[in-house]
């Protein structure tokens, strides 16, 4: 598939054609860090710097955020774009995957481990892994069971009470 070349080899080739847009866009990352650094500087001043002889709680964070601000300020100006990877179609899938992980955590909180783990495995195996339904369902059922045994029975992890526990317990 061509995707692998464009994902890994393109930073050097892609920048040539689409240079201009990139050169401006890539500054966002150091810029965000710069903002974070500046916010942290003020935050640590608010904590109280104290004196060098008697450092306050804010002194160390202050020094560190100065370092962050300094390095990122230079990066905003000087950062060469060559080590940036281009956004590909795969990127959209990753974002969807991230959302699904968030949903997993919410489901986990409300329905417990078994239901959410099963749904997550189905989604990831079928949609992101491109497995057949037979493999997906087999692995999801088996995987959930093994994980449940491993974490709950073997390691005794108290997962939130969920549907299955309610059914068994009830």
């Amino acid at each position, binding site marked *: 598939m061509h995707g692998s070349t464009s994902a890994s080899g393109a930073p050097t080739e892609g920048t040539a054609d689409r240079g201009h847009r990139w050169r401006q866009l890539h500054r966002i990352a150091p810029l965000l860090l710069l903002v974070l650094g500046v916010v942290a500087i003020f935050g640590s001043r608010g904590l109280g710097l104290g004196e060098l002889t008697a450092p306050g709680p804010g002194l160390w964070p202050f020094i560190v955020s100065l370092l962050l601000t300094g390095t990122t300020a230079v990066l905003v100006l000087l950062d060469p774009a060559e080590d940036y990877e281009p956004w590909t179609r795969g990127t959209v899938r990753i974002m969807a995957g991230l959302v699904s992980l968030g949903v997993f955590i919410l489901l986990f909180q409300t329905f417990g481990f078994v239901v959410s783990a099963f749904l997550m495995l189905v989604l990831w195996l079928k949609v992101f*892994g491109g497995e057949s339904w037979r493999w997906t369902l087999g692995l999801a059922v088996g995987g959930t069971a093994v994980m449940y045994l491993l974490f709950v029975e073997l390691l005794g992890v108290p997962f939130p009470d969920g549907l299955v526990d309610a059914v068994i317990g009830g």
Partner: protein
Amino acid sequence: MDSWSGIVTGFSVALTPTNLLYVFFGVLIGTVIGVLPGLGPTATIALLLPITYTVEPVTAVILLAGIYYGSMYGGTITSVLLRLPGEAASVVTTFDGYQMAKQGRAGPALGIAAVGSYIGGTVSVIGMILLAPPLAQLAVSFGPPEYVALTVLGILLVTYLGTGSVLKSMSMAALGLLLATIGLDPITGTARFTFGEVALFNGLDFVAVAMGLFGVGEILHSLERTDKVQAVTSKIKGIWPTRKDFRDSSGAIGRGSLLGFAIGVLPGGGGVVSSLASYAMEKRRAKDPSRFGKGAIEGVAGPETANNASSTSAFIPLLTLGIPPNVVLALIFGALLVQDITPGPQLIEQEPEIFWGVIASMVIGNLMLLALNIPLVGFFVQMLRVRAGILAAFALLVTMAGVFSVNNNVFDMWVVLGFGVIGWLMKKTGFEPGPLVLAFVLGSILERAFRQSMLLSGGSFDIFVTRPISGGMFAFMALIIIVSAITSRRRKAVFGRVDPADVDETDETSPDADRQVAAEGSPGADSTTDEPSGSTSTTPGER
């Protein structure tokens, strides 16, 4: 305790059934993940951190160490057979190993790599037994200023020896130090950057941060690349190298052992740097350098020996000074901290069973790896049949369940997810997660040492330069900064020589293939972060 009785203690610890089982698990998991592209030792160790809570500290380190050096063996297999480095330190092995495989000599290539790794690992263990105790004794006299110097040195070297931009690494280190300040101030008890969130009062959980950045971040990043891995169907014959093979590679193995040991001890050293250095050295020494890249056995034996030697000796600074020299060791350091053990000069005296137990387990683990690798190569190759999607799905589920199990807290799951996003974005934008995690781990030590130094000196910075040891270390740092500024061009030239562009390709591949291999190395490479292999991957483009 002298070394001899230490070794006896060590073996009595390492030979208990539990520890034997865990060292076996460690090297087995290590080999497997070394084979699997996309899941490097850093990601795996991050994912398995929660498990380490349930076992004794020494057992935890034995397991994690086994994974680390086990992955050095495993990475060789795919490098030789498929030209696909399973982890960063094996990128170099693709140059000659794959050529040997094409000439029908995959067996000897894998065999000499396993034997070399074993010798390298053993030499390193011996070096560790000799060097570690005196180093720890020296370090006992260290005060706060020395610790400031040491931690700063560790962070500095990791930022300097990484890939790409030093400035980017430095900003990540600063971010790591800043993140480490979240929570209650250890001295005054003031809440810092907690935004009123009670869950943050104890700071961000190290395990959650590491699992997010390395575990989830790696998985997401590797998922985006849709590599196809072809199955290996041909049978691998004649693994045990011939006498001629041994004769040809004995020099390379010897030099690789010493070089790997030396590089591993240095902060920022580790597998990748040492294997590249060894390859460059062998090529320079060879009577006929043109053989390199065409299946020279020294080109496999040297680097493979060196990367294993360095992954063992990297434990010396951790266990004697309390300074993790690279990111994998930072994770192991974190695992010990969580168990309320702070590695440092007192470790050998206070927790001899940890220090000597780990050393003894390395002797056993390397033997196990030799025994596993020679007969079972065919089995490990079958691991490649596991599809990336399946691996990712299960790894993520284990991560999420695992991080919950640490504190039984859903908040940590969100932290993992958050740092997973950050880790993936960092990969996309060329920021390395390594310096961040290392700085995050060292942050609280550094802050405490800094504040104590200030109290000691009455607010004067002179204390850092007037004391001989810390002054010496700061001088050393200044030297590094100056020297690296001067030699940065030269370093590029060295890596340019190692570049696979001179690999003679006649069939099947386009000119693009070299670049692709080098680039494919780097995602795995990122997982160890101490890699200059990124330089390898960028060099072809720069020409």
